[in-house]
């Protein structure tokens, strides 16, 4: 039986995280939420996500600390990361690619289906 992909959502706004979960669950994905980078690191060890949907500005350490941490370990360095942020226009995908970031989604412009499409595209 085909395994359902597990998506870790790292997002400190609880209602935004809930919205991501709502969209991804309806598309058939399993989801877990971490509200900050430390919780994300624990969740990665626990659930071994297939994809990480990552906000940038988090409580405590920012997403970049988490990205650096992921790259430190061979088992986590290959997990595709989708950045989903309000500051997409300040980020360059070329700068982020070395850190496992495959796509950057702009929260201010995206539609619910864009998140599903992004996850599908990095899982291929």
């Amino acid at each position, binding site marked *: 039986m085909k395994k359902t992909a597990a998506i870790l959502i790292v997002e*400190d*706004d*609880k*209602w*935004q995280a809930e*919205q991501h979960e*709502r*969209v991804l669950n*309806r598309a058939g994905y399993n989801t877990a939420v971490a*509200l*900050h*980078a*430390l919780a994300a*690191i624990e969740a*990665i*060890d626990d659930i071994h996500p297939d994809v990480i949907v990552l*906000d*940038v*500005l*988090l*409580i*405590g*350490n*920012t997403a*970049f*600390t*988490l*990205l*650096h*941490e992921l790259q*430190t*370990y061979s088992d*986590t360095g290959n997990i595709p990361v989708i950045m989903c942020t*309000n*500051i997409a226009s*300040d*980020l360059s995908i070329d*700068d*982020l690619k070395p*850190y496992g970031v495959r796509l950057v989604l702009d*929260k*201010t412009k*995206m*539609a*619910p289906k864009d998140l599903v499409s992004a996850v599908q595209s990095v899982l291929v």
Partner: protein
Amino acid sequence: MSAAQGEHEQLFSGPLLASGLSSFTAAAHELKSPLALVRQLSLMLEEGELSIDEQKRILRQISLTSERALRLTSDLTRSVRLADALFELEPINPQQLCEDIIRELTPLFAAHDREVRFVSHKHPLLLVANRDLLRRIIMNFSDNALHYAEDETTVEIRVGSLQSGKIIRLGVRDYGPALSRDTVKSLKDKLAHAAAPINARPQSSGLGLYIASQFADAMNGKIGVTQHRDGATFYIDLQASHQLSLL
């Protein structure tokens, strides 16, 4: 794995977190989050195929998120007019004010499965302030606590006195990730000389605290932050009213 501070944080060095952030830019940044969420929730409703309960929950989130954005715009407007307006200072019962605020905030906290409560002082207190500005400051601190404290923790609004009752302190205590020493030191410095948005949490533009410090100045008060092992207290100190001693 451990989360050490990574040198790659430098990847994000955009203007939003720069110390010289203008209020205008900060306002735009601060409003982005609630507006983006409202938009996404609205699109979700448009797509349909949601249960009645889901629709109700999304609608509730839209209205409460919109109210949050409106509070910010309202505070901004008031902040801009500070220099041109006279704000009447009057004796205020802080307990009554805090209880009013808690009544107003309870639906928002309940929607987040959270609680806000008042921790009363054993003796009656009276302070000198502008009711509207003080209310906005405490609402701002409470909103901050709601969004940055740990899940399932209670936010407390506290009233106390300092300097033998000459100063009244209203504080909002959250139980969230502790602020680092560097952050607290930086905050204290900036709160003492606030001339630009004050960034307490990394994802915040700091506009709320900046506005709060302006409102405090207009009432001859001072805002500050106390670091705890398990969270923080943002507070405002105001002059006590002498009227109580005349009673």
